[in-house]
């Protein structure tokens, strides 16, 4: 089933009376349970594609369908509602509210979307399970400045998962992490994908992208090519990485 479908998606920024066409007629489909990586050189439009396709930014032209429903026609509040309840976000910077503990930051979107107070107990249970799964239970009561970058990013992943989203958008989720932390975060994202969560991820890192089922290469605002790698397994990790590297080199990476 198609989770997300972008048709002739365009995004243009105007800077100092000059038009900058960041996305040019992008067509992309993401199927349920897929893990799609977006790669491309700097300034190619990767992050803009992620922000536009997730409804965070408005498209200049084209359509985006989420489970067949055209979100480009929805109001800002309706899109916000979809983002709150059906989408999860992981950013390169670990954006969290300063005055809340790690745990409260995680449960915040769920508490906000809870239709009644009785759901809160269930949310707390879910948060505990997810935190235990990602190994951050012991830092639950810490301030955001009191944990490592890896722990914080895992907390962001838990937050993105807290509402049981249909899709997670990840923008360079390992961009500010060291090798070990990157490995842990990607391991968790793969686990989530195995459990059925659809993931769309923007990355620069070949190693990270090789963990995706499909990688799209974007250049000058258009998807130039895509490579199907199949479901990730640890055993084939090296081979996947080499294949991806070769493909990217062919594309001029």
């Amino acid at each position, binding site marked *: 089933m198609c989770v997300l479908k972008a048709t002739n998606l365009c995004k243009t920024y105007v800077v100092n009376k000059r038009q900058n066409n960041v996305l040019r007629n992008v067509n992309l489909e993401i199927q349920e349970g897929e893990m799609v990586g977006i790669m491309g050189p700097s300034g190619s439009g990767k992050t803009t594609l992620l922000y536009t396709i997730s409804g965070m*930014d408005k498209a200049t032209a084209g359509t985006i369908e989420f489970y067949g429903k055209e979100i480009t026609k929805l109001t800002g509040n309706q899109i916000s509602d979809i*983002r709150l309840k059906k989408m999860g976000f992981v950013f390169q910077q670990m954006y969290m509210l300063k005055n809340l503990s790690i745990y409260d930051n995680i449960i915040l979107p769920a508490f906000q979307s809870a239709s009644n107070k009785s759901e809160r107990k269930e949310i707390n249970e879910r948060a505990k399970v997810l935190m235990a799964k990602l190994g951050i239970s012991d830092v639950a009561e810490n301030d955001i400045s009191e944990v490592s970058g890896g722990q914080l990013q895992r907390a962001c992943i838990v937050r993105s998962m807290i509402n049981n989203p249909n899709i997670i958008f990840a923008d360079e989720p390992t961009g500010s992490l060291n090798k070990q932390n990157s490995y842990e975060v990607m391991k968790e994202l793969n686990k989530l994908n195995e459990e059925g969560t659809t993931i769309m991820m923007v990355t620069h890192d070949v190693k990270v992208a090789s963990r995706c089922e499909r990688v799209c290469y974007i250049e000058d605002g258009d998807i130039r090519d895509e490579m199907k790698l199949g479901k990730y397994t640890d055993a084939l990790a090296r081979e996947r990485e080499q294949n991806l590297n070769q493909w990217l080199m062919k594309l001029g990476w």
Partner: protein
Amino acid sequence: MWYEILKKDLKKRKGINIILLVFISLSAAFLSSSASNIYFIANGSNTFMEYSNVSDVMVFLSMDKEKERFEDWLGTREEITEFDYESLCEIKVNQIHLIKKKSSDSAERHEFVNQGPTNLYMGYAGGTYAKPLDDRGNELVLKEGEVAFTANTVYDNDLDLGDEIEITIGDKTFRYKIAVQCKDIMYGNEFSGMKRFVFHKSDYERMLSVKENPNIVYQYGFNTKTIEDTVSSMNKQGFSSLMITITRDMYKLLYVFEMIIGGLVMVIGICLILISLMILRFSIVFTLEENEQEIGVMKAIGMRNFSIQKIYIFKYLVLVTVGVVIGFGLSLPVGRWMLDSVSQSMVLGKTNLMFLIHIVCCITLILIVESMCILFTNKLKKISAVEAIRYGEKGERYSKRKGLRLHAKKHMGTIAFLGLNDVLCNKRRYIVLLVTFCISFVLITIPLNTWSTMNSDEMISKFDLNTESAVYMNKIEKQEDSNYHYVGELKEALKRVEQELANQGYKASLSTNAFYFQEWNISGQEDETVKVLTNYLVAAKEDFYEYSEGDAPILENEVAFSKKVMEKNNLHIGDTVTTKIKGEKKSFLITGSYTDYMQLGESARLNREVNMDDEIMSGYGMVMVDMDTDLTQKELADKFSKEFPAYNWYTGSEAIEVNIGSIKETMKAMQIPMTAMLCILIMLITVFMIKLFIVREKGQIAMLKSIGFQSWHIRLWIAMRIMWIVLLSMMISIPLSMLTNHFVLSPIFKIMGAELKIQVEILQAYVIYPLILFAGIASAIFIATIHIRKIDSKDMANVQ
């Protein structure tokens, strides 16, 4: 480089900088104009006294039978270097009519309006002391047929030069043209309780000659080497018709009231400076926090603390200078306007120093703000390069986590929780809001509570009036009557009015207080006497006075004194004092003490049994009308005003107004402008704080939006922080307001002569007016958070 940084900063924080600029401009304008106002009035009273040739002592004799003896006494005193007198003729409101010109050939006849319990006198130009002056401060010169009015009379009656006054004496009517608006040091100030119409001397004498026994008052002025000794000696002479004594210092006091507006504006100016400094501190702290990373980088590359500090000092120097220049520009017209209103009634001398005073005030303000700026930016020295790069976080914590736990709140909404949690995590940040809201909520109750207290029954009783009376009236003399000097005349007049009421079917009994300036010998020593205003209840069926200690004087040899007189003269209940009645020395036993507002709390109450028939009264108070009626005081006063237009009828609260002048109405009139001012003030502070929060938390807002929070959720989140503070400040301001009542209002009423229970109109003071301020805060939140709609996911780059 500085210019570029400044330009960038001014653009980035436009709203915040504009609010700071507004506060600094207003502070400069208010401070400068009030300072010059106070300076010129303080100096102006000396100039006015000099130009008017004020004597060291001025006294008023109400009857001419003691004139010769008084002049003899003046002649025997060696310390008195010179003396002179002039006569004044008392006139009643119903003898005066005004002819106001409507156009060149038509005019309208109007009743004369006399505000408050003011005595009206006719006088003449050319006297020796306390001379009336023209509008330029020169000695007043009038032609025959001309009259001069003071500014307050012109204002009260809406007169123009060229209008006419018609005076009826007996069966003759005189008409004069209002030629000059004069400045009269003694009679041009409403607190003196006297007004004078100045005529040409021959016109004055012509009017006096019409009546056989005109009601003349003699105004004596004399210069002496020892004011206190001369006045003390004069008081011991027992001049029974001596009404009022005014020494040189008292003139200054008369014009102290003119400084009240200046004083109030100065207090507002100082409050604004304090608020500006608080805003400045927050602005600097927020800016430093926001720029922590840049500061860290600058420190890391080796820049010295002061080099970084200079950037901020320069920015605020520019901002303060611009604000002060705008404020200076505003202060000149404001200062002139404030002086113009005063210069109508007094001579101020040369005011060309105004420019200099304003410049000095403005420079002082720049220095204060810049010193504070240096002090506040010292925080920068404490930031280490690493700490700054980590946005002020050390990653260490030795105490319990601040704030609340969302997961532990089962019943609180997420947004309300976020708001409360933010306040609890950053208490210092919200103190400025809390303090401003508390001040506003408390300030708003002051005029309200003052007004309610002034309207209370207790206040009426403190003016020795019976609160149970159906209605009150004053001035019961007939047009042809002179002022009453003896209680017998007063009793007859009361009976006459009772009869007039009875003729119309109203069975009423009238009573009043007769006032005597009685000399009481308190120590037993012959020459040690104190002159005390002594109340004597006339025609009352029962004594309605209240006593705080002891009992009412009932027997013929009993008296009660006010607490102030007792304390001042070390008197106690049970002591014996003496006074002369009918020329004979009589002993009185003190039976009780009380507090009231008669003669600023210094008075005595005689029993009703003593015979005062031959003593000269100095006056009498409000006439209390007791009768059975279902009508309220207001309804009855309105009804009687129509049926008996020859008299003035008052409700209890109006009777107080007659006694205390327009203060009560001024308090009421102050309420709306004060509410508006406080509302604007708290709105500005609220907008300022919210703008700072938004600038500081742009990234967090963007993040919340990206994870699905809607704009209105975030606006509500910010609103909730302010609402928690409003709620807290409302709770704090109730006990604070009670403390203000106790420590501010009560002492003020005590200065007037008596302690009073401060009345609080709970609905108005704690519900209606706070709700008005609350509405102001809510609108400010609405306005300030509109910008949140424009923040989107791209702004996440600013997150910290």
